């Protein structure tokens, strides 16, 4: 027994080591190689320098403020797209007129590289927050709408039939059956849209400035301070990881029945 337990523990430690050894190796290699001067520091500053820069940016409040701006823009936009996308997606799936009108538009609109509209939005709405937020709405609308539409279309007919049999009327059907049944698909749409919202925000910030992580990152390059660029990328990776985990956790909590 005793031996079993010990070997089990050891193997799980080995497992977790195995899964990150390459990362640790890479980080150590980074520090060593840069310290030995094998890579020109402008291209790859020492890991410790990047970490110092990171700490500096965070403690000076610059990074926090930039992250706030970026996330605010991304999420206000995403919220707008979520509302519009879900409403139109469900209408498309349930109403022939909406389907007729929006289906071709979605078919054409979905593959458009929305990011190419950044200069247009600069022209229309300037370079402030509003412009960025509207851009995020336009860019993330498509995946949300398409997923909401498809999820609604795929609601099991027999669920609707069962509900009707038990006396559920047209109005109530939406809330009682369609929305809950389509909610996993709708959530998937939001999960797809979240990185897109960030992509659009970053690019817009890099092109048009106005603060935010994208601007801070590109400023690192423009000011030849590559440690700053690396530090911002660290922050973006961290934000990406946290968001991804949060979305997954939210999914497990909200949709634990799937």
């Amino acid at each position: 027994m005793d031996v079993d337990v010990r070997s089990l523990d050891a193997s799980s430690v080995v497992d977790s080591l195995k899964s990150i050894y390459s990362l640790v190796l890479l980080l150590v290699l980074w520090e060593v190689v840069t310290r030995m001067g094998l890579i020109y520091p402008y291209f790859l500053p020492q890991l410790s320098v990047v970490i110092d820069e990171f700490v500096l940016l965070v403690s000076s409040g610059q990074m926090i403020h930039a992250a706030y701006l970026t996330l605010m823009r991304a999420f206000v936009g995403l919220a707008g797209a979520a509302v519009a996308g879900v409403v139109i997606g469900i209408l498309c799936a349930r109403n022939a007129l909406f389907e007729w009108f929006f289906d071709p538009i979605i078919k054409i609109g979905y593959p458009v590289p929305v990011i190419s509209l950044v200069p247009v939005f600069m022209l229309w709405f300037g370079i402030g927050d509003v412009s960025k937020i509207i851009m995020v709405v336009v860019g993330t609308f498509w995946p949300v709408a398409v997923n909401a539409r498809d999820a609604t279309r795929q609601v099991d007919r027999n669920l609707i039939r069962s509900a009707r049999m038990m006396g559920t009327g047209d109005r109530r059907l939406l809330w009682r059956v369609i929305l809950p049944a389509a909610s996993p698909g709708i959530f998937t749409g939001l999960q797809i849209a979240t990185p897109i919202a960030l992509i659009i925000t970053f690019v817009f910030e890099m092109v048009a400035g106005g603060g935010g992580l994208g601007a801070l990152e590109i400023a690192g390059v423009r000011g030849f301070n590559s440690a700053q660029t690396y530090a911002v990328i660290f922050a973006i990776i961290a934000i990406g990881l946290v968001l991804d985990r949060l979305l997954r956790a939210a999914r497990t909590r909200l949709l634990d029945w799937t």
Partner: protein
Amino acid sequence: MDGRIGISHLEKVYGEGSERTKAIDDLSFDIDGGEFTSVVGPSGCGKSTLLYIIAGFLDITNGTVSVDGTPIDGPGTDRGVVFQDYALFPWRTVKENVLYGLEEAGVPDEEADATAQRFIDMMDLSGFENKYPKELSGGMKQRVALARTLAYDPKILLMDEPFGALDQPLRETLQDQLIDIWGDLDKTVVFITHDVEEAVYLSERVMIMTRHPGTKKTVTEVDLDRSRPREDIVTSEEFTRKKNEVWRSLREETKSEVQP
């Protein structure tokens, strides 16, 4: 009488133009209130179509179908459907599924709760009230579906191959439970199945349908003493005889149909 079903010169055509298919052709059949009727027939002969017409999901092309003399007009709480794939609301727990029909009927909470619990207990589901459908086996899901339908007390139970996806021992258990319920609750049951043995074991009358487009071919009356244990019933001569009778009738319809 409660739960009488009258089908007269029923015709059902799907589609239009070149896609027109006649699924049911001139079918007349009456089912008494409280009767247990099985329907068997070759695949695609229109069994589900018939059931869904009675349920009110599909329009009728010709003829009439009525419940207790009133022509059918859409789904309604006087009937309940049990599907082969259960059709449980996956976002609702067992209890919440069973409560659904009661909520829709506006039954007060406490009363609804008591009723739901009664059917949950009846279907041997106690202890699973707070599980989600995904956590249940097929047999348990079908029990929940049955409890959900029974809970809002429709006069007529419409069942479309409800046990088709389950394996033999589970099927047998559920068949026996269904017989008990039917005995206790006095429902009219229309039961669709592919399995001749199941049809004969369960029902008072078995309607055999012709192949596509389907209509009534023959009706076999089965009179078994269902209070005996299964072993005795299925090894009885009457059972074997009826089974062979239905089997032969059905075989005539299916034989020529099976081609590579």
